[in-house]
């Protein structure tokens, strides 16, 4: 190898290997200058290569630094060689990515700013006060509303504890919402917290960092004072409504728009038989089972009608309500829609009341009125007829005195007298029924009276009477004749209802009526008498009419019997009604007011036959016919008789007789003198002249109250017209015996 070739070979090795020594110019001889030049080039080359390596290292460092900023691991030299690294342009890529990251950051910041604005707007416009606290319960922010609620104007509260500003020591620590939130780690809500004279609902919510540590707390205060007051007023209103609903007598049921019950008051529970617990949420028609006479059940149609027209208020009367257990009652009903805000019906209200008793009282009243008006007419006729009978009876009984029983005429007169007595009985019945007839009352034991009357009516008939009386049966103040007549009529009716015989059950018991009883009588003590047959019964349609005069289903009846019973019982302050099941029999029930007194054994003895007497008797009657027959009968008995037509004349005659020292031993006075002074006024005046006057009152109106309580007016005897000679004799005997 030549020297130049060796020099170039060594230079090449020195260029490739930094550690390789440079050329030795002295050893190169004549090529020493060439070797020195090569050495300079080799040193320059080695310097440039170091510089390049530093630059590349710097680039890798910076790229790795940026990759770390982005969040990834550094580049590995084996992964990307220097050349590839440069060609990939990582700095360009990272710069482009940073550009996108910054763009995104800017957009995010803009969104955050808008969100912040929105939060600020919410903070200030929300209806409640907002307080932001740090973890130490110190105020770091609050809104205007909070300031209005709790702060004096101008007061700086940042940095203060909320306990100083809001609670001011009035809330125990254990009730502090913030502390409870810290303790539980959750949002805390507190209702109706008082502060001064106002009430607040409070919500405390935590704000936490990424690790869940408490940073802040946000407290919202809502002033509910007005709401609570309104609620209290509403609750009070509801309570008042509830008490009203529970205390009224009307049944009230409310439903929703689908007809399900939402409310039922106590009266409605009683009327329907359904308890509130069972009824609420039930379809109204399940419990409100109503129908009108002769129509199908109508609850659903009623409900639909009312809901269809919100203006409509249905009012109905005489509706039958079937109770839960099947019993029925009559009700009047009002059904109205409940209107919601938009005027649609959101349900209905049913208000109803039991009118069963009312209806029965109305019917009783109507019956009474009907009977009274017929009575007035019948009474007028009976009075005139009675006077005619007086004359016939008087004359016939007098005529008999002129004959002996063996005379042929005596028998005829006897028959005439009997017929006349029957006619008298009929007119008496008519009169009793007609104008009332205040009964001539005595204290009696009903047991004896009932037994006697019932046996009398049933004797000789195909029926038997069975009696059942309460041991301590109260006494009653009754007209024995009239009540006896009632019992007789009822037993006769019972006997006629059982043509093939049977037993009439007669019972009496003590009854104490209270306000709630359906019997149309005032409350108090009564004796109840039931007369029960097992006959054919009375049709329901007829049951209402049986007490009407001249109503009869019997071929032979004149329709007065039950009308008279009704009239008599009513005049006694009692009540009579009938109940019947066709095919099973009827029960007549009468209530008579009980007396506080006990019956003392009666000493009244029957007086029979005419007893002759002596003395002066003054007869006052406006009817000439009566005056004549009375005078004749009295003279026949041996009395001296004077007659007059009215009170004025009687007083005049009495005074004159006194003056002449020939006083009358007795005066018989007609109670009523049309157009003149009657017995009531005359006796007062005569008593003024002679307080010991023995006056007997006589009237065709057995019903007149004076006849019932004649003693109170100064009379000492009473004789209803028409009277026979026996009756006249008896009353005179009584007068003279009791007061000789």
């Amino acid at each position, binding site marked *: 190898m030549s020297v130049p070739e060796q020099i170039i070979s060594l230079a090449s090795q020195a260029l490739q290997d930094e550690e390789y020594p440079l050329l030795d110019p002295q050893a190169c001889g004549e090529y020493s200058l060439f070797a020195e030049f090569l050495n300079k080039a080799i040193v320059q080359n080695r310097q440039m290569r170091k510089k390049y390596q530093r630059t590349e290292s710097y680039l890798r460092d910076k790229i790795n630094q940026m990759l770390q900023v982005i969040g*990834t691991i550094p*580049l590995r030299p084996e992964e*990307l*060689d220097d050349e*590839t690294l440069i060609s990939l342009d990582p700095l360009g890529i990272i710069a482009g990515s940073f550009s996108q990251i910054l763009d995104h950051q800017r957009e995010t910041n803009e969104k955050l700013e808008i969100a912040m604005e929105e939060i600020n707007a919410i903070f200030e416009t929300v209806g409640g006060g907002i307080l932001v606290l740090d973890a130490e319960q110190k105020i770091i922010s609050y809104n205007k509303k909070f300031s209005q609620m709790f702060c004096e104007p101008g007061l700086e509260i940042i940095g203060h504890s909320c306990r100083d500003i809001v609670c001011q020591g009035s809330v125990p620590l254990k009730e502090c919402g913030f502390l409870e939130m810290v303790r539980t780690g959750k949002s805390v809500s507190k209702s109706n917290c008082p502060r001064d004279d106002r009430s607040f609902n409070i919500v405390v919510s935590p704000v936490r960092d990424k690790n869940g540590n408490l940073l802040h707390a946000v407290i919202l205060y809502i002033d509910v004072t007005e709401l609570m007051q309104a609620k209290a007023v509403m609750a009070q209103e509801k309570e008042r409504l509830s008490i009203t609903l529970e205390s009224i007598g009307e049944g009230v049921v409310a439903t929703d728009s689908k007809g399900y019950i939402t409310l039922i008051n106590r009266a409605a529970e009683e009327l329907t038989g359904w308890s509130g617990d069972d009824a609420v949420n039930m379809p109204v028609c399940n419990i409100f089972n109503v129908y009108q006479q002769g129509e199908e059940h109508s609850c659903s149609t009623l409900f639909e009608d009312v809901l269809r027209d919100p203006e409509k208020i249905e009012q109905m009367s005489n509706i039958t309500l079937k109770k839960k257990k099947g019993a029925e009652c009559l009700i009047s009903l009002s059904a109205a829609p409940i209107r919601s805000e938009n005027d649609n019906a959101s349900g209905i209200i049913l208000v109803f009341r039991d009118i069963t008793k009312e209806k029965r009282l109305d019917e009783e009243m109507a019956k009474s009125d009907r009977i009274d008006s017929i009575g007035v007419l019948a009474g007028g006729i009976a009075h005139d007829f009675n006077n005619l009978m007086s004359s016939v009876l008087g004359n016939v009984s007098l005529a008999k005195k002129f004959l002996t029983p063996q005379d042929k005429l005596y028998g005829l007169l006897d028959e005439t007298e009997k017929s006349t007595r029957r006619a008298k009985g009929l007119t008496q019945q008519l009169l009793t029924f007609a104008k009332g007839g205040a009964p001539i009352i005595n204290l009696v034991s009903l047991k004896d009276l009932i037994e006697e009357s019932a046996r009398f009516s049933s004797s000789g008939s195909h029926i038997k009477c069975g009696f059942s009386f309460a041991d301590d049966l109260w006494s009653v103040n009754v007209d024995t004749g009239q009540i006896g007549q009632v019992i007789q009529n009822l037993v006769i009716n019972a006997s006629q209802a059982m043509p093939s015989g049977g037993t009439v059950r007669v019972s009496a018991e003590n009854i104490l009526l209270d306000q709630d009883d359906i019997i149309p009588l005032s409350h108090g003590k009564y004796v109840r008498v039931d007369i029960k047959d097992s006959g054919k019964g009375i049709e329901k349609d007829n049951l209402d009419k049986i007490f009407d005069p001249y109503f009869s289903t019997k071929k032979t009846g004149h329709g007065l019997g039950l009308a008279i019973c009704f009239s008599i019982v009513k005049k006694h302050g009692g009540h009579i009604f009938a109940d019947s099941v066709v095919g099973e029999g009827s029960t007549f029930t009468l209530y008579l007011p009980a007396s506080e007194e006990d019956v003392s054994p009666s000493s009244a003895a029957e007086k029979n036959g005419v007893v002759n007497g002596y003395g002066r008797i003054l007869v006052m009657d406006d009817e000439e016919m009566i005056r004549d027959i009375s005078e004749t009968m009295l003279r026949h008995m041996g009395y001296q008789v004077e007659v007059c037509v009215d009170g004025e004349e009687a007083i005049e005659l009495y005074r004159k007789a006194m003056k002449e020292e020939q006083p009358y031993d007795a005066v018989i006075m007609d109670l009523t003198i049309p157009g003149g002074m009657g017995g009531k006024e005359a006796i007062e005046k005569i008593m003024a002249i002679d307080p010991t006057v023995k006056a007997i009152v006589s009237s065709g109106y057995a019903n007149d109250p004076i006849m019932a309580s004649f003693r109170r007016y100064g009379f000492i005897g009473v004789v209803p017209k028409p009277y026979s000679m026996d009756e006249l004799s008896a009353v005179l005997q009584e007068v003279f015996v009791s007061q000789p």
Partner: protein
Amino acid sequence: MFCQVGGILMAISDKQKNITLDMRGQVCPACLLVAMDTLNRQKTVLKSGTKKLSILTDNREATTTIPSTANNMGYEVTVNKIDTYYEILVEAQP
């Protein structure tokens, strides 16, 4: 379209809706740089929502670094495991 990374070619298929970047067999951070490069180049179509970028990789680290970087750049990212590799789907935020 082909791209040379670290001396190795990677297939990028540009379909109707999706741009697919198949980097299976490659490791991070080279994958991240390629993904970032693609996000930069396709910024307009990706941000507008016209297209989505589907990155296929079997490097587990890339499933953290790429989503994190793409999120910071304002993209919505979902990672799906498919058989032996992952699909990182990058699209515009809603």
